[in-house]
């Protein structure tokens, strides 16, 4: 029982009341029941992490463009983006113009951009590199096992939500679990009135009272979702796939399901040929969706609780190929967004002339990003990362 005292303090009063009847029975309640009850209730009001996986290998060099680097134009004779079109980051760097919607987050200081994030001895297979990002492991044999977020949620047997698509390895843990959710209908009540009546009054029976409280909570959540489903509360999302998924995620957050980790993906970044318009379209979909997501959360007064990170399994070859595309490269750009984030460029741009097998060397180990997010934002253990990684100044000091 001692084990839980420290964690109990972090619960809100409401959570505590909800759990207290169970904890009062602690000597009689097997530990596993106490643990699951806590896992089901302790997460509310805590910091939330949203991960957006950019599938296929995002072209880093045309995402954060080093326009002042004389090498850039040579590497990208047809794909280069003109300086005048870029969203200015620094005197030498600019964001791809399709990312313009991110300007709002950038100006508010709520967007950190980390170029050159990767790992030693980069692997250029989609599958293997993605597995490395998911597991933070390099051993072939561990690439199919548990994920960095799954491991971090293991001690608390936490739950993560995958919005759209199957549960990714990143969310797999030994004791934590992940729920795949693609349809809002899964958490809307078909007959809310009937559900309200069938819940019944407070019960004396401990187990029945527990189920009833949860049932009432479920109705409140479903009610909230139903209202949100009718009207978007003024949030305007673009009609893109990623926007639809982030909108669903925002609804889940508003309905207070209690999970602290949400995950989704945007695919299509494997741009081997004629990538100019494809890549611009993808970046624009990303920027528009993320911006709308934070606007929505801001209006719902939830944004302060949320940090979003976006990553891709690798960047692309710095030199464009013969078909106006790019091939599988190495380190890439990571975006970290949210009001808690210390915005701006973080870490250095990869050097375009000091190459290793034709590609630039990474400048920031991705596990430093993970360690910082886990420890400084979620307050979760980092020992699942398989080493100690120095924190990055990613977050603002708490006010």
């Amino acid at each position, binding site marked *: 029982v001692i084990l839980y005292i420290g964690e109990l303090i972090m619960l809100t009063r409401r959570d505590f009341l909800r759990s207290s009847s169970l904890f009062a029975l602690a000597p*009689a*309640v097997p530990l*596993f*029941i106490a643990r*699951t*009850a806590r*896992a*089901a209730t302790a997460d509310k009001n805590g910091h939330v992490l949203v991960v957006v996986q950019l599938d296929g290998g995002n072209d880093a060099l045309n995402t954060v463009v080093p326009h002042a680097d004389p090498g850039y134009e040579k590497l990208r004779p047809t794909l280069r983006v003109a300086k005048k079109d870029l969203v200015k980051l620094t005197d030498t760097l600019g964001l791809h113009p399709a990312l313009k919607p991110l300007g709002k987050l950038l100006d508010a200081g709520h967007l950190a951009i980390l170029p050159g994030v990767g790992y030693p001895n980069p692997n250029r297979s989609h599958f293997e590199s993605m597995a490395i990002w998911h597991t933070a492991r390099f051993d*072939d*044999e*561990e690439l*199919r*096992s548990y994920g960095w977020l*799954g491991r971090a949620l293991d001690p608390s*047997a936490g739950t993560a939500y995958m919005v759209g698509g*199957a*549960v990714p390895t990143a969310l*797999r*843990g*030994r*004791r*934590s*679990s*992940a*729920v795949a*959710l693609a349809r809002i209908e*899964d*958490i*809307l*009540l*078909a*007959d809310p009135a*009937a*559900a309200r*009546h*069938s*819940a*019944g*009054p407070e*019960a004396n029976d*401990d*187990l*029945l009272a*527990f*189920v*009833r409280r*949860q*049932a009432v*909570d*479920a109705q409140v*959540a*479903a009610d909230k979702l139903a209202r949100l489903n009718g009207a978007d509360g003024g949030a305007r999302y673009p009609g893109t796939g990623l926007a639809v998924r982030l909108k669903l995620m925002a609804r889940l957050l508003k*309905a207070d*399901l*209690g999970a602290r980790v949400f995950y989704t993906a945007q695919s299509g970044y494997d741009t081997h040929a004629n990538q100019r318009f494809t890549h611009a379209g993808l970046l624009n979909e990303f920027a528009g969706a993320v911006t709308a997501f934070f606007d929505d959360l801001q209006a719902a007064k939830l944004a302060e609780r949320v940090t979003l990170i976006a990553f891709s399994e690798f960047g692309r070859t710095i030199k464009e190929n013969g078909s106006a595309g790019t091939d599988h490269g190495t380190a890439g750009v990571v975006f970290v967004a949210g009001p808690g984030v210390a915005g701006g460029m973080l870490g250095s741009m990869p050097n375009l002339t000091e190459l290793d097998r034709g590609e630039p060397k990474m400048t920031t180990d991705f596990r430093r990003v993970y360690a910082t997010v886990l420890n400084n934002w979620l307050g979760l253990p980092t020992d699942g990362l398989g080493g100690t990684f120095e924190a990055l100044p990613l977050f603002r000091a708490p006010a």
Partner: protein
Amino acid sequence: MAPTEHWRAYEPDAKAPWDLRRVVHLHRRAGFGATWAELQQDLKDGPEAALERLLRGSANTAAPIEFAATADTLAEAAVAAGEIGRLKAWWFYRMLFGPDPLGEKLTLLWHDHFATANAKVGDPGLMRRQNDTLRKHARGKFSDLLNASVREPALLAFLDAPANRKGHPNENLGRELMELFTLGVGHYTEADVKEAARALTGWTAHEGKFAQDPAKHDDGDKTVLGKTGKWTGADLVRLLLEQPATSERIALKLCRQFFGEKATPPEALKEFAAGLREHEIDIGWGVGVILRSKLFFTDANIRTRVLSPVEYVVGTARALGMFDPAPSTLALADWSARMGQDVFDPPNVGGWPGGRAWVHTRGLIARANFAAAVLTGPNAGRSAAYDPSLLPSQYGFGGEPAGVLTFHCRLLFGIDATDEVRQRVAGAEGRKLVAMLLSTPEGQLG
């Protein structure tokens, strides 16, 4: 084991009569719920006959004659198509129609114990093979079950056994074998895990069957749980089976399966574990002791357990007699997954958290929506809507709302509606009334 107060056999008396409430209780716990005809039959025949049918594997006397052949065809088609969704439907078919609900329930228990997810294995054929193995040994000796289960190719793949080789140990299988399949946390050290992994080196699957690769096996001395030898995987399993912690863990597992919260005092559990050990962890014996016990039929053990999604889904369809037409078992499997129990895809190697952890927002919403869907029909793949007056009329309750309420309360809960419940459902009629009963907090317990 000398039967003590705790494990003395149940004999009906004034305090614990053999009434409808206890018959419903028995079927909810030992099976997936029963039809009105089955309940009445058992009420008439008495506890011995009812228990005998369940334990012998013939509780569902109305199982289709061609059940086994149909089930095999469904499984083979699912495997041939490589569609895990259809394999899930196959299992729900077995649970809904099969002659042996207790056998299916135990198979589900062992699927949870040796949790293996197709999401990683990616081979419906291996998943089916494993499921058949679990079913074959479901009420046999735990040593047979364990030995067969840890050699199942699906489990070996799930726990990275093929990657575990001499000089490159992968601890996954060794750790779960100790932590989850046998001893439980606290009964071994990290050093034991490392040594266990070495003993298991070379275990792999070849062409869908268990195989040992001598070239990958580390044949040096290992010290596991204080014993040193050139242990192989088979030796390791034997060593683990000898540990009292294993029988204790299986005792706890069986008690959690069949008892509700707080229903087994620690002394009772200890006694049961000792008995299991004396009987070489004979699962069938253990289940028999539990289901025949006074403890099982006491008031304090009735409606004190949260129904798992599979129990809720199959139990609803069975109790309401939805056999012809039946809901689509594909849809039943999908509804169960929405409630949080996706068979063949448990959330992790620890299986489903179970108990109170089943009770969460998404799960409760899915349960209420399922109740409405299965009664209406189409959203549960059923070609007809449920006629709420049909059974009440047939069994003499009349088709009026009062009769519909009384019949369904007795069918689902084994008791009459209290005034409070009547108040809650006041104004609701027909299918809506039945859906409300199924969605009550009481309806989630069994």
